């Protein structure tokens, strides 16, 4: 695991080039504290910071092939590097190291961009072809690793985290109101977007080719949520799913350092823990957060699973005060406005994991998307069939939908029937599944002065996606979850941005292409979808504590607005002071003031979910603006660590022909 950064610029010359690339790397030093390196050639600089996990001695970056034509910065892990290495050797390619980075490089030389579909891994990469002058940027198919770029008149910048751009001369961050509207409405940036003007992401499964002034963005692999149905019995299907998961965990235990597991106490992380325990020679270490506030706490389930599976368990207690205190630092690492605070505990947990001596963590992300775990999928099934159901069927299915939400309780059944009737036909083409949820989003968009249709770009995206229109309502819901909430929040803001803030790499066994395919082939083939993840539970029956298999899903959440209200941290002034609030010139001050006043003066239970979310959006946007746009150092936490070991420094510029090794 690493971070990468670089730029193409004809204007920057001389000593400024190594200085700027070094500064960019120092801003993402947290991603790879073990070593750093860069490569310079005329018009280009690129470098990497490295967290050494595979071939600790030999895997330094940037790495070149023998001829010096191809240079690579690789952020991530290739889980099938052993198999690919064998295949490439069979084709006559030779290797100098044991690292997965070299496998990626040789695969690129052998197959070109077609190598990307062969990769089973989590990555963002930059490959430079010195012969043609081309630069290739690519990202893994689910968005486990980031890759941002800014295409400016004077330079083309790219990096694993946007904060690296701060070190480029003349670079200024500016919030983009159009993207903020989309983020508030959808909960996350769209696959290729960011909250900042003129900064984009390489979308998941995407490849960006830069050659001179030309830019070609392509999708090397479309997300597939459909698959030919599995044809065996239900027992066969459960065994098939279990075996694919077992293989996935086995691949993700490949590491030269110890691998731990995040154990939330729910089904998915319990399954990962179970398989890791089976496949590890030594006792597995598991890590959890527990909350003082019992509404959010799952420590009982966590301990029960840990005891059942015999792990060495460690838990970090989180209070509202911890959330308030660490929110700015976590937002600094997230770089994107957030609708929940649940990423802050993960920021603290990764610190705890690092301090425990663990660099690599397995987690359960991706299971709910693949195996239809979210209530959203059941809601979609229900609304899609609404007008064909009897009153009794409607009542029964409504009752099972959101057991954790009070307003879905029996007292409100009649009113819900009316609400669902209004949402039983599609209004936003292609977004039927999310239309009820997006009502909350529309409320948050009221934060902005400009309230034009916030779903326009998402509608365009699904409209232009090959095969999307032919998917079932549930499959469309899956597609949207993969492309937005999973990649844009769970894997990023709550996932790798928080773990890498403390140099911990996360791996997601449920996001192996074979597991996703297996899920698609069995989903709704053996049940009607209304029992949560039925086939997955069947696959692990008898292997996990009964409570893991039977308890209703508890969404992972943390205290929201209440945490800030109670503590009133000093940065709340960004919202409480009219002068501070006025700095956010895209925000409607009248609505923002009303919202903040209501949140500050209303008892917690009377604050609705959408108000809570909108408040967290506003606060995180204000903090980001303060840190990134106004460059206020007092809250630009996580100042770059001072010491960075530059292990590789290669300068191929005609102006200074010196090839350096260790410096």
């Amino acid at each position, binding site marked *: 695991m690493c971070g990468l950064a670089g730029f193409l610029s004809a204007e920057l010359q001389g000593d400024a080039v190594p200085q700027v690339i070094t500064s960019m790397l120092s801003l993402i030093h947290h991603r790879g504290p073990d070593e750093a390196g860069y490569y310079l050639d005329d018009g280009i600089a690129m470098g990497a910071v490295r967290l050494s996990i595979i071939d600790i001695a030999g895997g330094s970056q940037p790495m070149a092939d023998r001829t010096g034509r191809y240079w690579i910065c690789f952020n991530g892990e290739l889980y099938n590097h052993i198999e690919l290495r064998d295949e490439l050797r069979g084709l006559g390619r030779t290797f100098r190291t044991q690292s997965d980075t070299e496998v990626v490089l040789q695969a690129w030389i052998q197959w070109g961009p077609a190598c990307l579909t062969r990769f089973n891994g989590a990555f963002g990469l930059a490959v430079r072809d010195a012969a043609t002058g081309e630069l290739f940027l690519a990202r893994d198919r689910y968005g486990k690793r980031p890759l941002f770029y800014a295409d400016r008149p004077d330079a083309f910048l790219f990096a694993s985290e946007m904060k690296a751009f701060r070190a480029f001369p003349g670079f200024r961050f500016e919030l983009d109101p159009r993207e903020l509207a989309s983020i508030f409405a959808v909960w996350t940036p769209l696959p290729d977007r960011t909250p900042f003007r003129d900064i984009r992401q390489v979308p998941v499964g995407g490849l960006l080719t830069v050659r001179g002034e030309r830019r070609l963005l392509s999708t090397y692999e479309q997300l597939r949520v459909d698959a030919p149905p599995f044809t065996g019995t239900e027992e066969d299907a459960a065994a098939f799913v279990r075996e694919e998961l077992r293989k996935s965990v086995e691949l993700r235990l490949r590491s030269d350092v110890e691998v731990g597991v995040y154990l939330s106490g729910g089904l998915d992380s319990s399954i990962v823990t179970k398989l890791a325990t089976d496949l590890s020679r030594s006792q597995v270490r598991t890590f959890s957060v527990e909350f003082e506030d019992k509404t959010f706490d799952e420590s009982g389930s966590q301990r029960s699973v840990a005891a059942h599976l015999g792990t060495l368990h460690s838990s970090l207690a989180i209070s509202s005060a911890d959330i308030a205190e660490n929110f700015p630092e976590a937002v600094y690492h997230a770089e994107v406005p957030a609708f929940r605070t649940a990423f802050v505990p993960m920021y603290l947990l990764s610190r705890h994991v690092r301090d425990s001596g663990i660099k690599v963590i397995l987690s359960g992300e991706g299971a709910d998307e693949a195996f239809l775990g979210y209530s959203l999928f059941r809601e979609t099934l229900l609304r899609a069939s609404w007008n064909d159901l009897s009153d009794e069927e409607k009542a029964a299915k409504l009752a099972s939908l959101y057991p954790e939400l009070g307003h879905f309780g029996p007292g409100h059944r009649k009113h819900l029937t009316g*609400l669902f009737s*209004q949402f039983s036909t599609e209004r936003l083409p292609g977004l039927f599944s999310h239309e009820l949820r997006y009502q909350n989003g529309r*409320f948050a968009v009221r934060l902005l002065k400009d309230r034009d249709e916030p779903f326009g770009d998402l509608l365009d995206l699904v409209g232009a996606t090959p095969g999307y229109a032919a998917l079932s309502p549930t499959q469309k819901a899956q597609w949207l979850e993969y492309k937005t909430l999973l990649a844009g929040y769970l894997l990023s803001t709550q996932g790798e941005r928080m773990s890498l803030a403390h140099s911990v790499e996360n791996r997601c066994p449920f996001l192996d292409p074979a597991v996703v395919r297996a899920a698609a082939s069995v989903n709704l083939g053996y049940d009607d979808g209304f029992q949560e993840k039925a086939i997955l539970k069947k696959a692990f029956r008898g292997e996990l504590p009964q409570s893991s298999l039977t308890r209703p899903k508890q969404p992972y959440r943390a205290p929201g607005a209440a945490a800030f209200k109670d503590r009133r941290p000093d940065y709340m002034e960004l919202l409480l002071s009219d002068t501070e609030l006025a700095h956010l010139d895209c925000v409607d001050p009248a609505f923002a003031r009303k919202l903040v006043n209501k949140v500050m003066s209303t008892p917690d239970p009377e604050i609705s979910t959408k108000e809570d979310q909108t408040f967290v959006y506003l606060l995180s946007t204000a903090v980001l603006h303060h840190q990134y746009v106004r460059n206020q150092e007092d809250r630009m936490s996580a100042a770059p660590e001072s010491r960075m070991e530059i292990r590789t420094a290669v300068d191929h510029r005609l102006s200074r022909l010196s090839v350096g090794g260790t410096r």
Partner: protein
Amino acid sequence: MSRTEKIQQYIEERFLVEFGGDLDADTDLFKAGVIDSFGYIQLMNFLEDEFAFQMDEADILTDVFVSLSSIDDFVARKLAEPNPR
């Protein structure tokens, strides 16, 4: 306070909006991002409590609860019924 004013005041306080400013009486409150599922349930409960009637299935399934004026018309109709349920 008139019936219309009561409903308007409830919506303004509960959903942080102002009629006359960003909304008028015919604005679709779902489309404008004012009401979500939780707010809808709250609004229904408010109407039943405040004006002392019970909605029935037929009421629920008509598409009336989308704007201030349609809600107000509905309440007026309910109150005019001989035996409010």
